[in-house]
């Protein structure tokens, strides 16, 4: 229920929300958890395996129970109610361990930002604020990130004072001071969740979630911060840990510090009458704060013999009974705590139980430093006997932990620790500046006891992992089955594997394992923590990289025309290439057949701008290309063009394309569309690492040029009309030569090359002029535009392979029937030595062939296997090869395919079978050149 006053909530404003169909109200400053507790909602979830009722257990991100589904404004599964800031119109429901993803797309924006700093401080509690303050005083670039809406950390949930003012006020003033500095950035609602190599940390900032439906649409809902820090201070605080006893999962059982936070920060009493069960002095302070806030604290139960007199006196003043040397053996109640059973430590196993009426049982087994990020950074952990937990040990990166994150729990110690860490971190970047340590009162402190497990005969109701429903009995079953490693026990029982990743249960599990095995906890070793510290939505991680921006879309200078003229597009790498240009009523098959016919019988044009282009310049350019291509390039005459193939050293085809000799010391190399960057990298690799003495420079000019392929028997006439100054006759402009000319009023380089077997010209202009050229060609009214669909058919009819489609890195030029492209004269080139390896000389290598299905209408799916017989033998069935390309041909009047077939060059005329669906389709092996094998059409 809500206190009449106190807390950091704005009682003047009322927020309406719904939970499990019920209307409630809360205030700005509330979390969903605090608002539910204020409305006395005890049951907020159902446990995943056992279906038991569960209540709010913690006050922060470590919450294992109160994991809810947000329904409105936008569905989001599995959020701890303790981390959901309340907003007007929030609709949420309880879960049983599994949430539901939204059915529709998330309309919110998400983004990412890179940030750099000298010092990153994680956590804005007392240690973190002190660290940021000390670091900022030197003028260093500082980022302070904290997961709460306001800075202060533990100070928000206690009544401690710093520098003579309430801790929360000190925190607010310190943060405000920091924010005034130009080189300091304070990030609120920002959880640092990953710590990677070279001090690279990743955080998520929740920017508009807390605004609900009022969130502005133009603002990114969540932002991923990618932070590169010279040094890091981890002031991540500590998580209170539970104790295992019977019924420790009932609603009403809560961490003592959490209850204190609800009372102090949120003005909420999470029950009426409480018993505190603790083995450390911190919980005494919590008990006192809660009593002063109006909670009826019936007793403090402490297994230690006697606490300090000061605490005892303070409890007496408030009428709180102190039961030292006692433990809680059970929480009892129907659906929630109604009574607490207490026993002296000495007689736990022999009875002697008394019962206290209470609806709240506040537990504190001690505090675990939040060492997740430290461990993720590569830092090692050690077990600290005195506080019974893991603390940072040795770092491998420029990081240190400060305050509670390294086991310094008292406030003055945290402030001093943070100040020192901040100053040290900044000293790597800026001159040191002495800073005063903020002052706070030292509390009386007796040694804590690492207390984990209340002994019992039956452990079926002693829970260790509330979210996974794992009990002490489960853990003991695992150790009973012979498991010794905590990691194995966790996998066996699933303890620690829920989305809270065992923040409250991890160490408790270890302790229970140690107890069962009769060894000290320290002997079990430590855990390695992995990112993310908290669950992060995929939408946040994707950021802007989704939808149209998911992957860059590369387009040519002619793209707008293609779009305007109804082209459908094919993705080739990141490029969008026109696939075909359907006319009304045409499907792909009809469009491609029409475009093919235009290219073979009339004149057609394709945008070929995506081919990679590399200028190779220098006196040794010819020799350089001789070393990389299988054939001779240095003998090429200026003005001429040669087709070439590049292999890897293993002799397998890597890329192919044409090489133009522009000048004595200047070649222009074209690559396949998908390989442009790889070929340039490849050439640079050989040039820089193997042949640095060659005087050659390489420059990519892929996008400098737009390229139009003008194809077909009518292409000469069309070109002549567009380029009146160019002699286009077969003798003036022979095959495999190029000319400078003005085409359509634009300076151009025209090449007589053909990827279709038809008379063809490739016209290159600067990409600025590409659209001008293309428009002029189309304005003749004589030319049919065609796309990659048609290009594939035309080249396949001629048996021209496509690297990456008809090859797969296991195919030599010889396998492609292209021995003619492999020089026998050159002493060496990349790949040559491999052609005399036994494996590359095998007669039964897979070789490129043509296939003609016996039914000329059957189109073989690409990838179809080929077998020798018309009925399948018992497996394993010998596979002879597979179909690499398959089309309908207008020119052949039938379907055909290219395939890689074992010993294929010796199989021409053979019948093979292709399993298609349930049928075995008979096909005839032929030469891979199916159209115009004598090359009669090349010159028009």
């Amino acid at each position, binding site marked *: 229920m809500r206190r009449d006053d106190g807390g950091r909530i704005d009682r003047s404003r009322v927020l309406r929300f719904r939970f499990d169909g019920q209307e409630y109200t809360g205030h700005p400053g509330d979390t969903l958890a605090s608002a539910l507790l204020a409305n006395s909602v005890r049951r907020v979830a159902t446990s995943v395996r056992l279906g038991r009722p569960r209540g709010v257990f913690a006050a922060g991100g470590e919450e294992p129970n109160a994991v809810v589904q947000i329904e409105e404004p936008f569905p989001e599964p599995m959020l701890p109610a303790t981390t959901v800031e309340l907003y007007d119109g929030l609709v949420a429901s309880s879960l049983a361990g599994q949430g539901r993803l939204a059915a529709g797309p998330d309309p919110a924006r998400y983004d990412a930002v890179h940030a750099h700093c000298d010092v990153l401080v994680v956590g804005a509690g007392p240690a973190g604020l002190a660290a940021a303050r000390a670091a900022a005083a030197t003028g260093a670039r500082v980022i302070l990130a904290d997961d709460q809406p306001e800075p202060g950390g533990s100070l928000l949930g206690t009544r401690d004072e710093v520098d003579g003012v309430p801790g929360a006020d000190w925190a607010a003033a310190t943060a405000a001071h920091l924010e005034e500095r130009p080189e300091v950035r304070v990030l609120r609602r920002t959880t640092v969740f990953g710590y990677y190599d070279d001090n690279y940390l990743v955080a998520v900032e929740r920017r508009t979630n807390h605004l609900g439906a009022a969130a502005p649409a133009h603002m990114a809902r969540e932002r991923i911060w990618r932070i590169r820090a010279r040094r890091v201070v981890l002031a991540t605080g500590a998580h209170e840990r539970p104790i295992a006893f019977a019924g420790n999962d009932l609603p009403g059982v809560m961490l003592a510090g959490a209850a204190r936070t609800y009372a102090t920060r949120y003005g909420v009493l999470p029950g009426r009458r409480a018993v505190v069960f603790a083995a450390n002095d911190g919980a005494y302070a919590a008990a006192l704060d809660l009593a002063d806030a109006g909670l009826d604290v019936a007793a403090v139960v402490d297994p230690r013999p006697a606490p300090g007199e000061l605490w005892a006196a303070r409890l007496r003043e408030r009428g709180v009974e102190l039961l030292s040397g006692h433990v809680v053996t059970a929480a009892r109640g129907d659906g929630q705590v109604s009574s607490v059973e207490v026993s002296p430590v000495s007689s736990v196993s022999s009875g002697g139980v008394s019962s206290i009426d209470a609806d709240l049982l506040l537990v504190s087994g001690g505090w675990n430093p939040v060492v997740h990020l430290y461990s993720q950074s590569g830092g090692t952990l050690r077990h600290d006997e005195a506080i019974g937990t893991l603390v940072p040990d040795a770092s491998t990166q420029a990081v240190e932990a400060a305050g509670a994150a390294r086991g310094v729990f008292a406030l003055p110690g945290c402030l001093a620790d943070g100040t020192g860490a901040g100053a040290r971190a900044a000293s790597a970047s800026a001159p040191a500046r002495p800073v005063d340590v903020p002052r706070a009162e030292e509390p009386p402190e007796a040694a804590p006891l690492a207390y984990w497990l209340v002994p019992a005969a039956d452990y079926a109701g002693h829970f260790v992992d509330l979210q996974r429903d794992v009990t002490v009995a489960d853990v003991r079953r695992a150790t009973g089955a012979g498991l010794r490693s905590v990691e194995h026990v966790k996998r066996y029982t699933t303890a620690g594997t829920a989305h809270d990743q065992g923040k409250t249960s991890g160490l408790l599990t270890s302790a229970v394992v140690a107890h069962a095995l009769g060894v000290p906890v320290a002997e079990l070793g430590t855990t390695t923590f992995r990112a993310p510290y908290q669950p992060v939505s995929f939408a946040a991680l994707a950021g802007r990289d989704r939808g149209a921006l998911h992957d860059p879309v590369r387009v040519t200078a002619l793209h707008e025309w293609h779009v305007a003229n109804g082209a459908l597009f094919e993705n080739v790498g990141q490029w969008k290439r026109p696939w075909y240009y359907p006319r009304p009523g045409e499907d792909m098959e009809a469009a491609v057949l029409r475009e093919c016919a235009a290219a073979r019988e009339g004149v057609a044009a394709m945008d070929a701008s995506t081919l990679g282009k590399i200028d190779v310049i220098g006196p040794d350019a010819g020799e350089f290309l001789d070393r990389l291509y299988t054939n001779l390039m240095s003998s090429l005459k200026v003005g001429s063009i040669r087709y070439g193939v590049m292999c890897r050293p293993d002799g397998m085809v890597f890329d192919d394309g044409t090489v133009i000799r522009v000048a004595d010391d200047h070649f222009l190399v074209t690559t396949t569309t998908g390989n442009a960057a790889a070929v340039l*990298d490849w050439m640079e690799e050989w040039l820089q*690492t193997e042949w640095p003495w060659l005087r050659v420079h390489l420059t990519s000019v892929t996008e400098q040029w737009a390229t139009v392929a003008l194809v077909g028997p009518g292409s000469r006439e069309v070109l002549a009309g567009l380029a009146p100054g160019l002699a286009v006759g077969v003798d003036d402009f022979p095959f495999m030569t190029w000319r400078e000319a003005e085409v359509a009023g634009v300076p151009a380089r025209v090449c007589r090359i053909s990827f279709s077997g038809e008379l063809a010209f490739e016209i290159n202009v600067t990409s600025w002029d590409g659209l001008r050229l293309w428009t002029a060609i189309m304005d003749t009214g004589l030319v049919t535009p065609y796309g990659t669909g048609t290009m594939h058919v035309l080249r396949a009819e001629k048996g021209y392979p496509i690297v990456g489609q008809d090859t797969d890195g296991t195919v030599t030029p010889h396998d492609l029937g292209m021995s003619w492209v492999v020089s026998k004269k050159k002493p060496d080139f990349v790949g040559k*030595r491999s052609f005399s390896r036994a494996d590359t000389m095998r007669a039964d290598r897979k070789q490129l062939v043509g296939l003609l299905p016996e039914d000329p209408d059957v189109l073989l799916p690409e990838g179809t296997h080929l077998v020798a017989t018309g009925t399948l033998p018992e497996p394993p069935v010998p596979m002879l090869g597979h179909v690499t390309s398959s089309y309908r041909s207008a020119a052949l009047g039938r379907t055909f395919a290219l395939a890689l077939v074992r010993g294929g060059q010796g199989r021409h005329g053979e019948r093979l079978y292709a399993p298609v669906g349930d049928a075995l389709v008979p096909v005839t092996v032929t030469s891979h050149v199916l159209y115009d094998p004598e090359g009669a059409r090349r010159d028009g």
Partner: protein
Amino acid sequence: MLLIPCPWCGPREEAEFHYGGQAHVAYPEDPAALSDEEWARYLFFRDNPKGVFAERWSHSAGCRRWFNALRDTATNRIHGVYRVGEPRPVAS
């Protein structure tokens, strides 16, 4: 995300680089003089140590230079970078 110190551009994110495998595997002087086994050794065999490894990287999204780096394969720490042609430094 590693920061890889390009010998020219300085530290840049790993994503700007291409990996090039083991360094100091020179293309044989005269491949024709090698036996099939020797050639296969050049083609297919590389070291795979746990610890410091001399390897090649290309700053492909930056200056496009190939260089060598000494990287500890167990810790990902880069102990030094050096340009092609420079001798392998002693790992610190």
